């Protein structure tokens, strides 16, 4: 008689846990940056499909590479290392991106804590959801390649090769995920709660940029493996892709190198350490965080400091000189600093830029791994070095052009529409000033000390002036049809012709830095020519600005019927 109610209770408990797991799993995708139109389910499929496609593209690229390789010995080690570097950086990126979803947040506290659900069950559900999430992504990234791996890259027993590949990639992915997740846990332990949030945000942004950079640098990382593994410096032990390439060698030897076998053994220790660290940092912290969320958030922050206030006053007085310019300029700065999705986008862009710079300089750089000395061959590297600021400024300006189109808060742009300050010119001037003062000029100033190492000071000064001038011209060109206040667009991008945009971007990125670097090399030989070029550039700019008097009103809604949008009938 008593068994039936107990069975019912057990079923209810299991159903509750299952519901929570499903909820937390969907929360990993329920981010505005991932699902701007509020359809997380559709986005799960889209993201996984994209990753699977990425895996397929990686295998095709690698297959093309193997056509030129004899598929034996160190070439197989290279391919293994290349794929591991790819997949580990993607998993690392995803976990860092999802940092916030690993712990319960304010929405959880508001929705779930009033319900009769014990904290341990929330923890269990959250951990299960995280592991499911990881598993799904590992399958999406590694699945396609695992199927093709034995046929395309390694001979031998089909199933054994496939199983080895699957095991190693899963181990590498778990290491990458647990290590990335543990950084957040460690920060929570080490830092006082007051400064945790800003520091964690900075670390998250830097890590995301680093992961993108590592992803793009995977071929270079794999290429250096043999050299690094052979060196006595022990640097290879600190590169995760090398460790797990060693594990691959341990499970399926192809070169029988003792150094690789040692790396393989170290990889198991590393995986154990990362798992233990994840468990140790997350179980107590979860409980701590869960309780902390019940407390109200800090509500009386002290506001900006004296330096911040003084700096803003100087900027307002000497740079902006119009209330609308002040409004737009500060709004852009605050949005970039505080809006997660915009910061993430710029981090990805920064990682992309850093990878491009390293790739352009890599052929001219020699690293002595014993002494960690970096040697750059000055003569041939000259053109590449001159191209560095130009590449970075192109990535920066085009990145800002893209990120400005992404709305900060879709429904909040009424504040701009209703203020009646339809001062298109002032708004666009403020935007251009922001790009210059907070983007282009700091970038060139930051690079000037490096330029001074390789070039005499007059050349460095010319590079600074010429680079800034070119950047202004580039900005004018890229923002030619931009008639909106950044982040106030009434819809999410996606309707534009992405293929066209990407093509234009890639062509620009290939030709702009190299052509301008060539021009700069010719100009620095003659002070007269250099001065003439700057004067001509300034004249073009002046004439351009004379012509471009923005008369049209600011664009908030694009070309769609505003009536339908405002009624919310399309959303």
């Amino acid at each position, binding site marked *: 008689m008593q068994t039936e109610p107990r069975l019912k209770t057990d079923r209810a408990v299991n159903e509750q846990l299952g519901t929570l797991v499903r909820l937390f799993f969907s929360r990993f995708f329920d981010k505005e940056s991932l699902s701007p139109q509020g359809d997380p389910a559709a986005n799960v499929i889209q993201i996984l499909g994209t990753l699977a496609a990425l895996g397929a593209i990686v295998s095709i690229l690698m297959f093309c590479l193997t056509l030129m390789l004899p598929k034996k010995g160190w070439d197989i080690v290279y391919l293994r290392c290349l794929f591991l570097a790819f997949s580990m950086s993607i998993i690392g990126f995803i976990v860092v991106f999802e940092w916030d979803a690993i712990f319960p947040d304010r929405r959880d506290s508001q929705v779930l804590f009033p319900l009769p659900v014990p904290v341990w069950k929330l923890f269990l559900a959250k951990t299960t959801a995280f592991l499911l999430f990881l598993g799904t992504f590992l399958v999406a990234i590694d699945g396609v390649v695992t199927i093709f791996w034995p046929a395309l890259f390694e001979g031998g027993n089909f199933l054994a090769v496939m199983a080895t590949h699957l095991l190693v990639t899963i181990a590498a992915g778990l290491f990458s995920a647990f290590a990335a997740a543990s950084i957040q846990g460690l920060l929570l332990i080490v830092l006082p709660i007051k400064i945790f949030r800003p520091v964690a945000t900075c670390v998250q942004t830097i890590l995301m940029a680093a992961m993108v950079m590592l992803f793009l640098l995977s071929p270079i990382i794999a290429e250096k493996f043999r050299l690094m593994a052979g060196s006595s410096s022990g640097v290879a032990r600190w590169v995760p892709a090398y460790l797990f390439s060693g594990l691959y060698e341990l499970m399926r030897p192809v070169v029988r190198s003792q150094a690789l076998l040692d790396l393989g053994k170290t990889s198991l220790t590393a995986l154990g350490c990362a798992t233990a660290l994840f468990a140790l940092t997350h179980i107590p912290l979860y409980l701590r965080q869960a309780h902390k969320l019940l407390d109200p*958030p*800090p*509500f*009386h*922050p*002290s*506001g*900006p400091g004296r330096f911040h206030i003084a700096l803003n006053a100087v900027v*307002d007085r000497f740079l902006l000189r119009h*209330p*609308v310019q*002040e*409004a737009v300029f*500060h*709004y852009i700065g*605050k*949005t970039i600093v*505080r*809006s997660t999705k915009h910061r993430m986008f710029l981090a990805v862009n920064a990682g992309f830029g850093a990878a491009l710079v390293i790739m352009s300089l890599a052929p001219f750089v020699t690293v002595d791994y014993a002494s960690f000395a970096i040697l750059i061959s000055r003569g041939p590297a000259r053109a590449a070095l001159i191209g560095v600021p130009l590449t970075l400024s192109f990535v920066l300006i085009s990145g800002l052009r893209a990120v400005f189109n992404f709305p*900060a*808060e879709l*429904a*909040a742009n*009424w*504040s*701009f*529409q*209703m*203020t*009646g*300050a*339809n*001062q298109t010119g002032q708004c666009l001037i403020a935007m251009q000033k922001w790009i210059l003062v907070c983007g282009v000029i700091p970038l060139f100033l930051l690079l000037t000390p490096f330029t001074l190492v390789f070039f005499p000071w007059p050349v460095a000064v010319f590079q600074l002036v010429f680079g800034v001038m070119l950047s202004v011209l580039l900005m004018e060109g890229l923002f030619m049809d931009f008639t909106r206040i950044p982040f106030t667009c009434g819809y999410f991008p996606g309707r534009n012709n992405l293929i066209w945009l990407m093509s234009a971007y890639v062509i620009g990125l290939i030709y702009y830095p190299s052509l301008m670097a060539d021009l700069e090399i010719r100009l620095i030989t003659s002070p007269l020519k250099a001065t003439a070029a700057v004067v001509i550039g300034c004249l073009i700019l002046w004439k351009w600005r004379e012509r471009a008097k923005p008369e049209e009103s600011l664009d908030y809604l694009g070309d769609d019927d*505003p*009536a*339908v949008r*405002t*009624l919310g*009938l399309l959303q």
Partner: protein
Amino acid sequence: MLEIQSLTKYYRNIPVVDDVSFSVRPGEVTGYLGPNGSGKSTTMKMITGMLEPTGGRVLLDGGDIRSDMATFRRRLGYVPEEPHLYSYLTGLEYLQLIGRLRMLPSAVVDRKANDLLSLLALHVHRHAHISAYSKGMKQRVLIAAALLHDPDVLILDEPLSGIDVTSALLFTHLLAELAAAGKTILYISHVLEAVEKSCAQVVIIYKGRIQAADSVENLRKLMQLPSLMEIFSQLAEQRDLGKAARDIVAVMRG
């Protein structure tokens, strides 16, 4: 004076607002009432210029607002139905943004923003991000933003939503003061007692059409009903609400 003349909005041949006409006189508060989905907020969006009407026009002091929307918006203070704000800004930063977009000098914006936040009991929270604010606090920020530039016309769409009793009482006094200062005020609310207390005239809309537009006193006499609540029930709500309540309890128990 704000005049709404034959304002109409169709969406795919469905009338959302159908031939709505009424006037809002300066120095008075005009209440605009209707159940959810009756077309109140759509009317507001058309009056503020955020939505293009299918037909009709809105006149301010005899001039069509569409002929010079920028000037109209300079004279307008608007509290929208939903508190959509830039949640990563602080309350003070939001007011500074709005003040500067309204081209007020920085010193004036800072002074007025701080004063308004103090008077609306938000000063201690001025440096907290709006994301940490309650709905009532967000509403107060919106009210402050609507008043920052001393507008001639105020359109207030559910300004009391989520607001505590003290702030609601303060708001009732504020409406009277603003009306006394000669402002033209259009006030949407579901709090019928507040409307009855503050408004010189009420306009009742149901299914996109105006059902009544007169002073509460005249409506009472005309319909021989004792309160605005009963007038509203008669004009805009035909269901037997007592029966509906009993049905809800029955569902809950089942």
